[in-house]
């Protein structure tokens, strides 16, 4: 059969080989970090749902009237007297709950949910959700350092996407091949290339937005150094509304009903998204109203009122700069929080594909080494431990968080991950893989059962059943993966 003509330009072989060498070395250098960030990011897409799962005895509220936000704020202030800041976020497509966050004068932070009437039933912490989101955002390192590491991982991922594309001269010829079995290297290469190519728009957006979110501190700091003599506040001041002069003299709350009514008049097509009170009950207090639009990703219009209820700052999304709109869009684009379950499921599946690309990338390298007669067994074992330790570490940390408030999920995750690494060099790769997948499957099956045993009788939020079913489905997938016999690595030809 004649070779089909391809529209893709012919790339010289030496160039492809050079790009492949760079792709390999960068991929290996960042493999573990990229895997961890991709895995944690895929789970973090569902953070709002895991929060609901951790606190399942509160019925979801699809929509509440703005006066519920006022009632919630008043209930909170009645109970605690005063606060530095109070944030009341109303239910939206991502999370059907009224969320409460408050910083008190004594430094305490209160977090929880209010019911449909605005009754605040006390603190509702979600330690495991906090842990897994934090792991993705800054690896629980000091924020400036951790977010920089995650940002640089995003840059490395973006660079790998560029070099991966350039090193693929058969991009169209192989576009529809997924051949399992045969040799391990070809099998892993097919999975790596297909999941990489067909998910490319998503992969690029995730890597770019992730890098940008992670490098924000560095970029803002450099700008400040260049233009504002190192004062980062001046850079941030370009994007954030001005604050009122601090004056702690006691004063009554302004008329919140009138303020909400005024904001509603100014943004008739928008709905209240967030009510924020800064220094409530003081002369220097302000009320920040965010009005969201259903067809916009940006957070929405911003109206700020002073202690007398007078409007002193406005920023409407329709009139804000392109830069501000892009900035407000990065988060939803990165996490898939723009269309409820539709976008979340799509992001979990595509995030899984990106995680698969990372996993198979290293598998190709180890299979290539083996086929050339230079196996790297320790690297292979450590990589398998890296990959399969995470379902186990996530499962154990969630189970412990479900049963007892201490130890913290981060500590549990660290111990389990560390133990997997420490034991990996002493067992063969196949055994590590099978053992960790078996333990992971068992944990993912036990977790929903334990949750039902503890909270099932008081489930008021149906998402708890959805998460339980999802965990169980993951357990089944892991069991099925155990039945799959991997392709052998090609042995070197005898000399």
């Amino acid at each position, binding site marked *: 059969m004649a070779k*089909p*003509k391809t*529209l893709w330009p012919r790339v010289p072989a*030496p160039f492809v*080989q*050079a790009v*492949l*060498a*760079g*792709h390999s070395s*960068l991929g290996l250098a960042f493999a573990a970090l990229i895997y961890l960030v991709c895995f944690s990011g895929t789970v973090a897409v569902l953070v709002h749902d895991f929060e609901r799962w951790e606190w399942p005895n509160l019925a979801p509220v699809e929509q509440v009237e703005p006066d519920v936000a006022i009632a919630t704020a008043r209930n909170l202030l009645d109970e605690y007297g005063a606060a530095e800041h109070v944030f009341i976020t109303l239910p939206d497509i991502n999370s059907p709950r009224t969320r409460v966050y408050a910083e008190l004068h004594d430094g305490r932070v209160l977090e929880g949910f209010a019911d449909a009437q605005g009754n605040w039933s006390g603190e509702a912490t979600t330690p495991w959700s906090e842990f897994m989101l934090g792991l993705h955002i800054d690896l629980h390192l000091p924020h400036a350092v951790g977010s920089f590491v995650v*940002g640089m991982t995003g*840059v*490395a991922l973006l*660079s790998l996407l*560029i*070099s991966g594309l350039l090193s693929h001269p058969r991009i169209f010829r192989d*576009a*529809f*091949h*997924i*051949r*399992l079995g*045969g*040799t391990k*290297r*070809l099998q892993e290469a097919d999975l790596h290339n*297909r999941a990489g190519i*067909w*998910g490319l*728009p998503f992969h690029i*957006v995730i890597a*770019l937005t992730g*890098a*940008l979110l992670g*490098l*924000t501190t560095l*970029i803002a700091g450099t*700008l400040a150094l*260049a*233009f504002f003599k190192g004062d980062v506040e001046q850079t941030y001041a370009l994007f954030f509304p001005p604050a009122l002069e601090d004056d702690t003299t006691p004063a009554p709350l302004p008329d919140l009903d009138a303020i909400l009514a005024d904001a509603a008049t100014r943004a008739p097509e928008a709905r209240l998204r967030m009510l924020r009170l800064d220094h409530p009950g003081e002369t220097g207090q302000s009320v920040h109203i965010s009005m969201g639009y259903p*067809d*916009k*990703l940006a957070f929405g219009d911003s109206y700020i009122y002073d202690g007398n209820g007078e409007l002193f700052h406005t920023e409407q999304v329709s009139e804000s*700069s*392109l*830069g*501000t709109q*892009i*900035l407000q869009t990065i988060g*939803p684009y990165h996490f*898939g929080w*723009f*269309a409820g379950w*539709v976008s979340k499921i*799509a*992001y979990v599946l*595509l995030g899984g594909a990106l995680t698969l690309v990372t996993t198979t990338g290293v598998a190709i390298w180890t299979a290539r080494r083996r086929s050339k007669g230079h196996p790297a067994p320790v690297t292979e074992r450590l990589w398998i431990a890296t990959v399969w330790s995470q379902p186990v570490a996530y499962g154990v940390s969630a189970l412990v968080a479900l049963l007892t408030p201490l130890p913290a999920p981060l500590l549990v995750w660290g111990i389990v991950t560390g133990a997997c690494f420490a034991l990996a060099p002493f067992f063969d790769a196949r055994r590590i893989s099978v053992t960790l997948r078996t333990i992971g499957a068992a944990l993912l099956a036990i977790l929903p059962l334990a949750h039902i045993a503890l909270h099932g009788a008081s489930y008021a939020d149906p998402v708890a059943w959805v998460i339980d079913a999802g965990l169980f489905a993951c357990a089944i997938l892991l069991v099925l993966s155990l039945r799959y016999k991997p*392709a052998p690595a*090609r042995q070197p030809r005898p000399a």
Partner: protein
Amino acid sequence: MIESLVIAALAVTGIGAAILLRRAWRRPSAARPAFIIGAWIAIGVLVAVAAGVMGSARGPAFAMALVPLGALALVATGVKRREANGRVAKSRALEPSLRGSKVWRGFMRTLVAAPLGCVVSLTLGIAWTVWFPADPQTRIVLGGVWVPVLWAGAMAWALTDDRILRPALSMIALTLAGGALIAIEGF
């Protein structure tokens, strides 16, 4: 209602476009360019429709997630199993180029890819911020978007080029040029 239809259409378009591309891929014929161009036009039109119906930022976000997912679903249906019979044909895939494994070369590459790549991308990002004719917020955000893109490109170049001095000197020159541009204009 319209939004739900567009959501479904986006996933179906991903599948449909992948079917057209697969048809072009499987059976080379005179109609092949038409299938390929048709697939990409279908995707372009649906992205435009999604932007119109769902909003200029939300629509493309849906498209970015759902079209690849539809295409991946179709590609996944074509999985073939091969038997490992021990007689494996020689792989036609190219091998990475063999480079000298000298420590100083690796060290140089790391220096060029990471710190130098970071410095050049930050400098050029700020130069963009300084010179781009727009309001300060837009200049800063677009300049910021350039930083990871340029750094990723610099990283790929530093790790790809067999002659490490070439990207190193080019990046130093670009950093100096960017610095000069910033100094000329100021903020």
